[in-house]
């Protein structure tokens, strides 16, 4: 990645560290994002995702390290960065007591877009995000998913090259999440770079590449497929315990089996990692016959559990 020419790099981070007092929120993070890429930032709450984004948007000065966003470093003048990026904060930041139109006009005016041009742009973006209600509606009366669409419109009014979306789909319905991700893909299709954080693992599948963050550090960075392949080199079994035996001695017994590397709950089911593919049959024999057993492809959630929660080290 380092060797790629700058013209195709939208975001470049080198050894970024952010400390709040003694506490290190972001620890020596390096990564770069290509132009037009959908880059996913994954991690539990408090991992340091928002802090990283705030540095990239010019809202926070890093303790050390270098960042370059849309070709500019913060030292070149924050307004250079601020005019080229759009930021949708993880908190809902539209004004509840203003109408949709008033909110968007306000955002536009702050960006120096005025008059007829602003009106056209608002119309265009509301159509893009699929907003079909009256623009005179107060934001407080809109459902969460629609609010997020309007927020997105507000953050891209000035046609930024890079869009930072911090947990854009938290707290909205699955249907609204699905629609939102369609918009993200459309944005990328128009050549925008999209830097998005989420803690929904299924959403991360939409990203071209994912950085997994834990305690301020990047612990993995790859495409979804690459992450799965590198994290799970051995078979993954999914078992569904029969209702009668949901609680039983089988669980500690299996866990103690030398060929079982880990068992993690996965909804009603369990995901079981076999350390040695040759001993797959042996493990299967240990599982009570009333259980449903299937060999499965790992999901990103499995990756996340394995890398972050279980502290698996490659």
């Amino acid at each position: 990645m380092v060797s790629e020419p700058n013209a195709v790099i939208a975001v470049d981070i080198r050894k970024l560290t952010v400390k709040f007092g003694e506490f290190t929120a972001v620890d020596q993070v390096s990564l770069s994002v290509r132009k037009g890429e959908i880059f996913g930032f994954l991690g539990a709450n408090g991992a340091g995702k928002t802090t990283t984004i705030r540095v990239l948007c010019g809202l926070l000065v890093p303790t050390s390290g270098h960042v370059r966003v849309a070709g500019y470093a913060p030292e070149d003048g924050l307004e250079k960065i601020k005019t080229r990026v759009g930021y949708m904060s993880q908190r809902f930041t539209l004004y509840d007591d203003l109408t949709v139109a008033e909110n968007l006009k306000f955002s536009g005016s702050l960006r120096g877009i005025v008059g007829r041009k602003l009106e056209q742009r608002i119309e265009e973006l509301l159509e893009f995000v699929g907003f079909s209600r009256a623009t005179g509606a107060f934001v407080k009366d809109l459902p969460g998913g629609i609010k997020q669409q309007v927020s997105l419109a507000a953050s891209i009014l000035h046609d930024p090259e890079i869009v930072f979306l911090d947990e854009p789909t938290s707290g909205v319905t699955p249907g609204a999440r699905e629609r939102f991700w369609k918009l993200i893909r459309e944005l990328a299709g128009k050549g925008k770079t999209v830097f998005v954080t989420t803690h929904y693992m299924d959403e991360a599948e939409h990203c071209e590449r994912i950085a997994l963050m834990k305690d301020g550090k990047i612990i993995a960075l790859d495409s979804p497929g690459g992450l799965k392949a590198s994290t799970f080199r051995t078979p993954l079994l999914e078992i569904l315990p029969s209702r009668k035996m949901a609680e039983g001695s089988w669980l500690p017994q299996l866990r103690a089996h030398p060929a079982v590397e880990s068992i993690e709950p996965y909804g009603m089911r369990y995901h079981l990692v076999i350390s040695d593919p040759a001993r797959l049959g042996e493990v299967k024999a240990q599982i009570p016959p009333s259980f449903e057993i299937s060999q499965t492809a790992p999901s990103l959630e499995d990756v996340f559990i394995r890398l972050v929660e279980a502290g698996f080290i490659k």
Partner: protein
Amino acid sequence: MKWQMKWSRIIAVLRKEVFHILRDPFTLALALALPLILVLVFGLAIEFNIRELRMAVHDGDRTYQSRGLTEVLGSSGYFKLTNEVSPVAAMGALEGERAKAALIIEKNFGKQLGSEQVARAQVLLDGSDNSTVGLILGYLNGVQKIAEHKFLPEVASSNLEIRTKYLFNGELNSRWFTVPGLLAIVIAILSILLTSLTIAREWENGSMELLLSTPIRPLEIVIGKLVPYLVLGLGAATFVYLLARLGFGVPFRGSHFVLIPGVLLFITAYLTQGLLISVITRRQQLAMQLSMMTGLLPSILLSGFIFPIENMPPFFQVFTSILPAKWFIQISRGTFLSGSGFAELATPFLALFVLNGVLIMLATKNFKKDLEP
């Protein structure tokens, strides 16, 4: 790296803030109803005990001019006169609480009126009686006008002077005095409280961060957000002024060119204090509490609005000097009641300048630290 301040961005923030104000019943109620309620509560207190205030009169002149004056007083309906043989007896009546006021007419009163000299009659008031002093002052004002125009037609109207002097309470502390002081209270509430709330709200719901992610400069945000409250504060101040003058007939003896700069300085000080509070707290609840503690309560209790500063322990007499309200109340009362100009009010004006400087410095420093990465 500096970039240009843009009026369009300031106006965008200002417009938005006006929407917030117009759509928030709490702000509107506070801005409109509060001045009215305060003036009514404090102003109406003056209306009690309206008739028949006992006044001890010593007429040392005994001319038809002096009798004319006492007659005007007696027939006004406000005072019930008792004659006293000597100035000392008149004072005794006042001290013994047999009278609320004493009128002493000196020997040469009639002669002075006839000539081109200034004729003086002295009214002594029991300054410790809050409820009546303001009232008497107001009546005397009217009585003097009637006397000049009706009963003493042959004299030039300017040479009758009724001097008032307060006994027992040098710095007069009357309810009358509270009405000009109300200007300070109303401004304190609107400026400190509303400013700190509006900016804290922006922090609290995260929109400050969004504002800062655009090219807008922090100073533009502040100007855009403060101007509507400056206007609101001025509006409320005008309202209190008009109510005081027209509704309660409080005299205005000074110059508006002195009062208005005073009001502006005072509002700026409190807007800045509100800004400082919101930058420090970032939370509406906390901002509200801090505004009450550092702005509203001291303005009411420690500024001389209710309790005279002279009667406070020495520590407080010094401590209160850091309260803009203390100085503004001096300006307000000075211009309303004593007709003071810049010369007499140099100290309060200077103090307000200094306090403004300090507050602006503190707010800018904290604001910069927080907002300019």
